[in-house]
């Protein structure tokens, strides 16, 4: 009897241990499944929202390119007007070094050019190009993983990011008030050296008789925008983070955080943060000519009189409004390995390594 009494409850203890183990396995499996699922959704959200920013920027760049085409077209039209169908301007009795009618036409050209330039500058501004792009990114984040848009950043405040306000500029010096520089999606510089002139008949002879055909003075008018070689070389780095609403078993807890607890998540106490990074960029378009030599330099960087038309099509040929967007990658080679911790660098958090934009591959 004593022997039997000693063994009573043995099975209950055994069953209890088994059930506890099973419960732990179930809990851990559930945890893992939910964490993996959330992590996949987080990466999907990062990819798509970053792509949305790049797509919106690509659309803005196409719009900006069209504005630049418009400026070039106005410049071309101005030249046609000043050419006057190759018939010299003539105002009987005029002995001045300019022709009054041609001067009026020239002033009208200036006004039209200024309006077209203003249109470009406004379209290229940060608030008209980058701001709506960032909004699109957050809208996409919300649509894919509701709640994470509040923890979505596109590194617009990190120095070196092309989306950083103030990093890139539109520069112009024109004859309309307020000329200067404003933040824009990329670095566009305006060419002011384009020369305009016209041929006219001077009446300086006796009794106002025609004295001969002369060329007017050369006028330098601001025309289209040019840019540096690869500008705008815009990439969008996005970071999406979220704290799962359910608590997880913390497999690699560190009170200091950044312990790569859950699939790259940062674990700081009760806060298991899932983080995903993505890079995308607009490509395959060109806002305008670059300041390189050769054809791309548009062949019109010197104030040569333009009565004989030249070079006006060159800049238009280099204005290619075919921007689209694609995903890009993150190059890890420079870090000497594929340590996932280097990705955290994108967050601007120092881990002993410097911010390095060369890590981005286009």
């Amino acid at each position, binding site marked *: 009897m004593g022997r039997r009494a000693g063994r009573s409850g043995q099975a209950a203890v055994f069953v209890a241990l088994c059930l506890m183990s099973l419960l732990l396995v179930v809990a851990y499996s559930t945890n893992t499944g939910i964490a993996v699922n959330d992590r996949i959704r987080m990466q999907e959200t990062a990819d798509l929202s970053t792509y949305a920013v790049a*797509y919106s920027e690509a*659309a803005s760049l196409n719009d900006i390119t069209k504005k630049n085409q418009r400026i070039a077209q106005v410049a071309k039209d101005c030249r046609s007007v000043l050419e006057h169908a190759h018939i010299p301007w003539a105002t009987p009795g005029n002995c001045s070094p300019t022709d009054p009618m041609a001067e009026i036409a020239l002033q009208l050209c200036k006004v039209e050019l200024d309006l077209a330039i203003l249109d470009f500058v406004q379209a290229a501004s940060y608030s008209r190009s980058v701001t709506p792009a960032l909004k*699109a990114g957050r809208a996409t984040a919300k649509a894919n993983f509701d709640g994470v848009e509040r923890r979505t950043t596109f590194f617009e405040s990190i120095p070196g990011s092309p989306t950083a306000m103030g990093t890139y500029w539109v520069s112009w010096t024109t004859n309309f008030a307020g000329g200067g520089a404003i933040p824009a999606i990329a670095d566009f510089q305006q060419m002011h050296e384009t020369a305009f002139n016209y041929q006219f008949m001077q009446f300086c002879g006796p009794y106002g008789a025609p004295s001969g055909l002369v060329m007017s003075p050369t006028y330098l008018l601001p025309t289209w925008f040019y840019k540096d070689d690869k500008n705008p070389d815009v990439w969008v780095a996005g970071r999406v983070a979220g704290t799962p609403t359910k608590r997880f078993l913390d497999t690699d807890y560190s009170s200091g955080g950044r312990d790569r607890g859950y699939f790259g998540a940062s674990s700081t106490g009760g806060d298991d943060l899932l983080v995903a990074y993505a890079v995308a960029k607009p490509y395959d378009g060109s806002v305008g000519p670059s300041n390189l030599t050769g054809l791309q330099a548009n062949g019109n960087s010197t104030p040569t009189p333009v009565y004989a038309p030249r070079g006006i099509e060159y800049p238009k040929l280099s204005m290619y409004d075919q921007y*689209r967007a694609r995903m890009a990658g993150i190059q890890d080679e420079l870090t000497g390995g594929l340590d996932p911790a280097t990705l955290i660098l994108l967050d601007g958090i120092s881990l002993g390594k410097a911010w390095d934009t060369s890590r981005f591959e286009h």
Partner: protein
Amino acid sequence: MRLRRGQSAVETMMVVPIVALTIMSLYYLWSVIFASENAHIRAREYVLHGDAYLPDADGVTGDSPFSAGNYQRADSTSFHFEASATDQSLGVFGHSDDIETKAVITSR
């Protein structure tokens, strides 16, 4: 001693269903999560790559900035691309779940 005959069998009969139920539950949970991940990935790939992504894939529909072998020109800052994907978890207890997910690229 005769009273204890069959005790192990009874205990085993009690434990086996619990273990079986647990394993089947885990299997069911795995299949649901697998289906969910599968659907999410398929929707994501489709919304980025459109028909270029497994053109014969079942249960994936939507539109995409990608067609004719390349990404399309970005026409407007107002855009909306959306893809839906469905997948079915494996049948457990005579039951399976249809998992439907969507992936969105939008400006609004």
